[in-house]
């Protein structure tokens, strides 16, 4: 079974997998059984004569149609499941209280949202060999100054989280197995997925598309905490970033006074 248990879409994928698996097992047993039976039963023995049969149109049409019917059934089952996998559900009553959609880096019509349109929108940026998460709440009008984190994404429980997956360099692939499928981060494109976590905890994953020598170490975590705790974390993250920015500004000012400062701009 694919991993599940973190988010409804992962659970739905696992249940679709289970359906495909049961159908596949039946076909596997029947076909391998027929092969094994034919090999054993009709092995060359003394006095055995091979029947000189060249075909049987009815039989051949039968198994062609049979195979097609099984696949039609599979397609129908997939379509039934599809909406619950792709379309985000609403946040729970105990989820994060969300206001509007202001402050996200990018707005898009392709992004799937719950019917109310409310979701916590996080931008996931893949870069060699680190994941960056940008949260809504930009300090400036042009979208800059938004709080962000690396490697571990902290999210509130019972809240629909909508991810906008982008890349700053090569192709990466976002994957937290228990929270649903993979979505490539392709530079120049936006890719969207979602999850909603009910149980607090840490959900582990890693980059799933070869991105260079550090690919195997490009890990990603999603840590789900109750909404109040999330608010506190986000506020703390903002102060940390503000402090770091202030320090950097001071350092830059100091460097700017030194002779030949341009040479150390990109060490």
């Amino acid at each position, binding site marked *: 079974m*694919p*991993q599940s248990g973190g988010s409804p879409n992962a659970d739905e*994928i696992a249940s*679709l*997998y289970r359906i495909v*698996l049961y159908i*596949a097992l039946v076909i*596997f047993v029947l*076909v*391998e059984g*027929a*092969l094994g039976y*034919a*090999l054993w039963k*009709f*092995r*060359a*023995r003394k006095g*055995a004569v*091979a*029947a*000189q*049969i060249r*075909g*049987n149109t009815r*039989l*051949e049409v039968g*198994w*062609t149609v049979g*195979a097609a019917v099984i*696949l039609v059934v*599979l*397609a129908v089952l*997939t379509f039934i499941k*599809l909406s619950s*996998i*792709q379309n985000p559900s609403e946040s729970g009553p105990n989820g994060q209280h969300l206001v509007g959609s202001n402050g996200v880096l990018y707005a898009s019509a392709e992004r799937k949202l719950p019917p109310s349109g409310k979701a916590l929108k996080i931008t996931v940026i893949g870069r060699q060999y680190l994941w960056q998460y940008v949260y809504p709440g930009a300090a400036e009008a042009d979208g800059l100054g938004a709080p962000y984190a690396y490697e571990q994404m902290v999210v509130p429980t019972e809240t629909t989280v909508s991810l906008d997956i982008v890349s700053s360099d090569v*192709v990466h*692939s976002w*994957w937290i*197995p228990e929270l649903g*499928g*993979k*979505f*490539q981060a*392709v*530079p*120049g*494109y936006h*890719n*969207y997925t979602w999850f909603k976590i009910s149980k607090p905890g840490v959900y*582990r994953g*890693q980059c*799933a*598309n*070869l*991105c*260079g*020598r550090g*690919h195997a170490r490009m890990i990603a975590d999603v840590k789900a905490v109750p909404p109040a705790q999330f608010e506190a974390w986000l506020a703390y993250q903002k102060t940390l970033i503000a402090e770091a920015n202030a320090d950097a500004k001071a350092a830059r000012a100091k460097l700017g006074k030194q002779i030949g400062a341009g040479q150390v701009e990109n060490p």
Partner: protein
Amino acid sequence: MATYAPPVPQIVTHRAESAKPQGWTSWFTTTDHKRIGILYMVTTFVFFLLGGTEALMMRLQLGAPDNTLVTPQVYNQLFTMHGTTMVFLFVVPMMAGLANYFVPLMIGARDMAFPRLNAMSYWLLLAGGIVFYASVFWNPPEAGWTSYAPLSNSFFSPGGGQDAWIYLIHLTGLSSILGAINLYATIANMRAAGMSWGRLPLFVWAILTYSVLIIFAMPVIAGAVTMLLTDRHFGTHFFDPTNGGSALLWQHLFWFFGHPEVYIMILPGFGVVSEILPVFARKPIFGYKAIAASTVAIAFLGFLTWAHHMFATPIPEAILIFVMLSSFLIAVPTGVKIFNWIATLWRGTVEFKTPLLFCAGFISLFIIGGISGVFLAVFPVDWQLNETYFVVAHIHFVLMGGSVFTIFAAIYYWFPKVTGRMLSEGLGKVSFWLMFWGFLITFLIQHVMGLDGMPRRVYEYDNVGHLALYNQISTVGSFILALGVLVTVLNVARSVKSGVIAGPDPWKANTLEWFTTSPPPANNFDVVPRVRSVEPMKDIRREVERRTAAPGADSGGATVPAGAMQVGV
């Protein structure tokens, strides 16, 4: 007694060119399709052993979690070399080698349509292999056999290995295109009298389709790697998103070639199985027309499904659905083939010779690979499975359990024709069982590794769950598999000089390549018999038996008592 005695068919080689002592340099100048075929097969098998060694090094690295046997850089180079070697330097050209040797013989031709072009195809292939492997001494490529842009551009992969990879695609691609044109022209124009399309051996049908697929698919990858080359060195930005290019375009171009490539690798294998099963079941192939038609259907549908390698990319939902359905559709003709093969065995008298074992092993493994392919075609399920060891398992079930097992079946089946000597059955069976169980131990468990969340192309992993144990099992299996391959290598080395003399038709087979000596003379046939069915050799044997009225005549294959007349033309 002036009554007319109809001629009895027999192999006539009195006008064959005498075997002039030829120096080893003649291998460089030969235009004989059989010698070129041997060059192809030996060369590609050497690359198979190289690619296999790379695979074993990877399995050793993964044998323990957090292993430090090789560096991440070397590991990336290993899987890039392994994948590229197996696809471009082993399976595709090995099929070309088999086709080179056997297509003219099977259709009753004396050579390929363009013998010198044929030699050029081989030398281009060898040049591609040498250019690619030369990079081992500098910087081997490390962007995977798929070489996704922008990772493969000059900023992220500055090493010359990436260029070596591009030149390999150019050279082997040109080799394949020229070879395919040659095979197509040969099959279309040089068939024996009476060999209508409906009497074409199924292996030849498969090679015809393989040729068409190559002619349509290879130019696309040739164009794509040329664009990559100009991106890398001449300032274009086809795949460079920072300058208005599209990183996704590479994936589309690569897989538009890459998916038909899968069928380029497996369809000839299907053809081999369709030839071997009837011979060892002593029964005609079941549903000849259905098998030939499904080959063509698979080839056509193969061009409509490339985006199923791209389910995780940003791509409109309508395309996801279309590609899922077209991928499902391919399962139908593939299933039809499997059913027909089982029906061919049904009520036959199955002789468990090594070629048959490899074919039966192939079918049983390919069923698993086909079914896991249906999982991957369901795109929401694929979102969880793609880029994991589940996919690694799937491609090895269809390419190793699939194509490679059919190549081994072909080696055991046709070795007597090529060398005039039999391979050892005992060693053959040992080789088969080692390869079969080694394969299952290596790759079955990889489905579980993928479901447990292990991505492919990682040089190390944390020991979560049972990943360490699963990987150890897989590593042990890979060495059993390698041992099985080694037994066949030994078998071949031993039998070339000292195998039992085979005679022209040791298996009592159905097709025309057995109606000549083993190995065949330079011109293949002095006299090509008229073809009256899909099994011309069976007709000939029956004819010989009837005319000579000697009950034992059948036992010697097609050779008949001295004094019998040659077949009329």
